[in-house]
Every structure is written in C-alpha cells, then in structure tokens.
C-alpha cells in the first residue's frame, strides 16, 4: 500500500463523514458567516480603516484569513480524537506508510477549507464585497489563503499528536481567539497602541490578510512599514517557515507514539 494511496483512502473517510453528517461542516460555515455578519454590520460602522476605504471591503479578506487560521482547531481536534479512540493505533498496526495518517488529514482538511473558502467568498460578494484586483491576483490571493491553511494544518497535526487529551484540545480552541484577533484580520494594526500594533503586524495571519487585501484590490489599512511593503512575500514566507518547522515536528510526534 503506497503512502499516497493510503492517505487518499483516509481522506475519503472524511468525505464519507460529510455525506453521513453534513451538519458538522455546515455548522462551521454558519459560524464563519455569523462572524462575518457581526463584524461587517454590527461593529463595522464604528470601525475606521486607516488610509480610507469601505470597512466591509477591508474586513472580507481578513475574515477569509481568520477562518483559515481557525482551521487549526478542527485539525487538532480530529487528530486528538482518533488518537484517543484508538483509531490512530489501528492505522499504525496496519501495513501502510507512516506518513499516510497525516497525509489523509491534510487531504481532508484542505478539501474542507477549499469549500469553506468558496462559500465565504460567494457570501461576501452577495453582501456587497467587491474584488477590484485582476483575476490572476485574485487567484493568487486564494492560493495564499490555502497556503496559510496548510501551515495551520501541520500545526494542528503536531498539536493533536502531541497532546491528545481533551483539555489540550480545549486549550487550542481558546487560544486561537487572542492569536486570531491580535492581527490585522479584523482591525488595522495602525489603530492599536504602538506596541500591540507591532506584535499584530508580525502575526503570520496579518501577512496573509494584508497580502490578500492587496491582491483582491481592497483597502489594506496599513499605510507604511514592512507589512505594507512586503505583505505578499511575508504571506508566502511565514506559512513556508511554519510548514518547514511543523512537518518534522509532526513526524517526530508520530514516531514518539511508539515510546
């Protein structure tokens, strides 16, 4: 059994889950849409975008990046659940490559996120978000969002394998909020106190949010600094760096299961 084929079979398991229990992914989507509506319409009127521009146009790419980041939760949750229920051990006792389990997770979660992204983009367009960038740039923006998701996926695999307890999963679910909000996803870092703004600007999520704003042709909310000048490169560099760190860490965590 090749590693890739086994990975694909494990991915199909997730697709079968959708068919059996469509409410899980649908509920996730509704949650993202709710966040979008809350910030877009409830808080949006009170938020000013530095450098000008409509808040909804500013918000939408940020929400897309945020939802990619929140994906870390689902990945960690599912990895940890399989470990707790003994399903990971069953996979490990079977004749297939050791990367199959992780690859199956990658396939499933990327498919999940691609659908989520599509629905959020269509939903955004429906409530008045405008893409003014050229199609090539817009496509690159989508690729950058998925690249961020891939990085979050490997972090989630590492966390789920290393800390399978339910408490650890709950911790991940809580921690994504401050990390998600301490970025330029929802508000510009230029409206924050200087020190906080500096931290937010270095958040990998900010790089992807700002880069996709530039590529979609939306207001970025950043008028100067490294983020304004290098957003696209940062949005490539950060996820690549995270992947380079967390793939070997995940491999080690998987090997450590046999300790």
């Amino acid at each position: 059994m090749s590693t890739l084929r086994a990975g694909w079979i494990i991915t199909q398991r997730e697709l079968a889950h959708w068919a059996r229990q469509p409410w899980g992914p649908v509920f996730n989507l509704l949650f993202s849409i709710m966040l979008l509506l809350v910030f877009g319409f409830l808080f949006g009127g009170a938020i000013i975008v530095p450098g000008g521009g409509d808040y909804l146009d500013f918000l939408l790419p940020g929400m897309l990046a945020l939802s990619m980041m929140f994906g870390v939760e689902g990945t960690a949750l599912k990895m940890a659940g399989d470990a707790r229920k003994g399903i990971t051990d069953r996979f490990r006792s079977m004749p297939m490559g050791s990367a199959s389990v992780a690859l199956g997770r990658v396939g499933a979660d990327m498919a999940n996120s691609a659908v989520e992204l599509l629905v959020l983009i269509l939903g955004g367009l429906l409530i008045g978000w405008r893409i003014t960038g050229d199609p090539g740039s817009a496509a690159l923006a989508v690729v950058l969002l998925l690249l961020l998701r891939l990085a979050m996926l490997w972090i989630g695999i590492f966390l789920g394998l290393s800390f399978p307890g339910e408490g650890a999963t709950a911790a991940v679910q809580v921690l994504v909020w401050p990390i998600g909000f301490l970025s330029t996803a929802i508000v510009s870092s230029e409206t924050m106190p200087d020190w906080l703004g500096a931290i937010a600007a270095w958040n990998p999520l900010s790089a992807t949010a700002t880069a996709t704003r530039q590529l979609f042709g939306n207001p970025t909310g950043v008028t100067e600094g490294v983020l304004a000048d290098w957003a696209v490169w940062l949005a490539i560099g950060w996820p690549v760096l995270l992947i380079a760190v967390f793939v070997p860490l995940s491999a080690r965590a998987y090997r450590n299961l046999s300790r």
Partner: protein
Amino acid sequence: MLIAEGLRKRYGDVDALDDFELNVPAGEIHGLLGPNGAGKTTAVRAMATLVRVDAGRILINGFDVHREARSVRRQIGLVGQQAAVDEILSGRQNLVMFGRLYGLAKSAAATRAAELLETFELTEAADRTVSGYSGGMRRRLDIAAALILTPAVLFLDEPTTGLDPRARNEVWATVRQAAAGGTTVLLTTQYLDEADQLAAQISVMDHGRVIASGTPSELKRQIGRDRVTVTVDPASADALARRLPPVTRDGGTLTFEAGVSEVVRTLDDLEITADDLVLRRPTLDEVFLTLTAKETVR
C-alpha cells in the same frame, strides 16, 4: 507463531516489561492474565509493532517486529482496549475502508466486508451508523476489522472490559471463530473466567514478567486438589467418614479433598445414595491470587 524473548521496557522508574518471555505456537488461544498495571497492554503493544522495547526480540511468523515491522503488520490484527472504529461511518463503510488500507481493491474489500458482516451477525446493522451500535456490536465490528486479511496472529487487549454478560458471550464466540480459522490468538484479560473459557494456555503476568504458565487445569492443580461435597443421610455419614476421611464435616454434609470418581466409587461400595453431590475445583481466581500474592511478598 509468536516468540518474545527478554523484553524490557522502562517508563520513568517503572519496569513495564522486565525480562518478559512468551512462546505461543500457531493456532493456539493464549491468555495473558494479570492485575492492572502488570504490563499486559505494554506487552501487546510491543508485539503489535506499536511500542518499541528497550531490549529483547519479538518474532511473529519468523519476522522481527522491530526490523520488519511492515511485514509483521501484514500478519497481525490488533483489537485494542477501546473499539477502534469510526463512529460516524456505517459498519460496512468501516470494513471497506480498513480493507482498502490493507491493500485490497475496492471490490475485493466490499466482498470481504460483506463476508465478515455475515460471519459476525452484523448484516442487518451493516449500513447503519456505528454510533447507534451496542457495545457488543462495536466490539464485533472491531474484531472483524482486525480479521480482514485473516491474520496469522490476532491480539486482543481486554476485549470484553465494560461489556454486559450477553455481549461478552458474543465476543467469546467471535474469538473462537477466529481461532477455528487457524489464527493464533493472544488475549489479555483481568477476568479469570474469560481466560478459563477461551484459552488453551495461560501465562500469568505480574510486575512486567510471566510468573506462571500452563493450561488452566495445570494452574489450578498447582494450588490444590478438587473438592467434593456430598450430603447423605446422617446414619450413613459415619460409615462414609470412616472409609474416606473428610476434610470438613457438618452433620450429613461431608467435604473430601479427592476426585469425583473416588468419592462416587466409595458411595457405591457402601451402597449409600447421596442426596447431593457438588464438585468444586479451585478457581482460577484462587490460583491467580495465590500467585500474585507470592510475587508481592517476594
């Protein structure tokens, strides 16, 4: 065939396995018995390629578990402490998925799934989601998943813990079925009657090593002889007691430390009719408690 030699595994300052040795010939149901924390699960996980031991060697059908893990995995089926099946999928979907992961083509996996569902009486529930299954049904599905390739060795780690008596019987029948197909079975359990019911050979384990082994009756014999209690009318009791001295006597009720045949022969000779005759063998519980108590004193 399963051979474990000199296995050692240390967690912190606890020796989970301390010179663990085991030899199970092909086709046998072998019971690994021990109290909680004796190292049963570590032993099974080591033999099933899931845990790397610090020292020692494990061979399954001639393949080394450490160096030839991939080949070993083609020869084994593992049933862990929890039923490791996907709860959202149906029973059939589970078996097809695991079958494909074992390398079967889609159609072959479907055929094999149907066979196993039939064998384990899950056909009716085959297309329902596993979350609606009873504990016993889940366990049966779990065992079926481990039997997809008809493994040479099937590991069962406390397969009936938490099951009601009926489900337990179902699982026992399943294990016997697997063994009848030629599979070697290694079963860990804390329940002595389970080992007694299923296993041809038993190894009693404590503190990471095997402290006694043999057939259930051999183990029982180590502890004491059978006891037979008969109730006869008080008038005959004296005559009986003179011929065969009882260990205890309460009126017409006498208990002998002797075989049933010996007691029955004596009754016949004296032409006494017993109102009641009860054979009590030392239970495996007594064997187990005696053995593990010794071990603790040591």
